[in-house]
């Protein structure tokens, strides 16, 4: 099994979850109110109340095959709005 970590702006959460659903992931986990820094932008806590939105961290445990479907749906979103996606190996306990 694979583990996918997605980190991107909370404002795109809804759209991102739609991508996950359409790639038929078996499930996902969402952590909001996340801050951070990317190559260009800093995301700080106060961006939540200015409406810009902090980041969301989404974890998906799924098969490699799902990941491939997912990639082509998610890549354009990440390119347009920014955000990162990393994959690691993972096995059920």
């Amino acid at each position, binding site marked *: 099994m694979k583990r996918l970590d997605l980190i991107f702006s909370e404002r795109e959460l809804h759209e991102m979850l739609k991508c996950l659903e359409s790639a038929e992931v078996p499930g996902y986990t969402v952590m909001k109110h996340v801050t951070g820094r990317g190559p260009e932008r800093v995301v700080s806590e106060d961006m939540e109340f200015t409406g810009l*939105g902090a980041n969301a961290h989404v974890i998906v445990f799924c098969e490699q095959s799902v990941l491939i479907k997912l990639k082509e749906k998610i890549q354009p979103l990440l390119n347009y709005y920014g955000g990162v996606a990393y994959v690691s190996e993972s096995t059920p306990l």
Partner: protein
Amino acid sequence: METSLVLQNVLTPPVLFFFLGTVSVLVRSDLEIPAPLPKLFSLYLLLAIGFKGGHALQDSGLGGQVIPTVGAAIMMAFLLPLICFVILRVKLDVFNAAAIAAAYGSISAVTFITAESFLENQGINFDGYMVAALALMESPAIIVGLLLVKLTGPKNRPNSRNIRWREILHEAMLNGSAYLLLGSLLIGFLTAAYNPIGIEKMQPFTGKLFYGAECFFLLDMGIVAAQRLPSLKKTGSFLIAFAIFMPLFSAVLGILVSQALSLTPGNALLFVVLCSSASYLAVPAAMRMTVPEAKSSYYISTTLGLTFPFNIVVGIPLYMGLVNTFIPSTL
């Protein structure tokens, strides 16, 4: 005379709490108002000013100066971003210029509230219907900003980045803060018409509590504004100058319009503050969505780190001085 007004303004609780927040960052105190508590206060303030404004609008009716004033305010929200855009294009690309222009065309509700508190403190009357102007100045600026990108921007934007009309209107009318403000205005209006007991029962919450909640929120705004200061360095001196002089320029425009409309001094000050304040809530959120090419640090740092403190501390009393000079009180 303006100096004494500035001093009188500085020694009020809202401005003092704003300073307390600013200083806490400068001296590296670990005072922190953790998320989402600031959101609680910002939602509360929008709900309360909307509700009170709706009530006032019901009381005053739509006659007299209401329609002209609100109309002029909306006009300013269309005009100001255009002026800003022309100025900003001297140094910036289309995306950044349009985003910042939209922010300066729009308004800051907290600056408006602080101006109201200033007037109450000075014992100067103003009309509740000015809140309607506040509520209606957010959307036009967003629309102009997005149109500027659409019309003057490069035609070879990737397809996904073509702004659609539906999207523009959605962002302009339905972002959370504009929606809550307008909605509460409507609720206040309806309640005042059909359920006067409801107005009375809301009063402890929307009325009495307001000043204290404003102070608490300004404490947080002080912290947030001061945290933005370091990133101002990166925005460069052109934008720093813009963040101070544009409000002054808008204020002068605002005074001319107020004079033409023969607004009372109190209403004139609020009108001027609407013109000279810049949005750090609704507009940035809309721009982040539809013009991701613009650097959010530009429009947030200037509006929140510079224009907002300037208006709160120096701007309001300064504009009051100008109003007093140009618009003779009828008293």
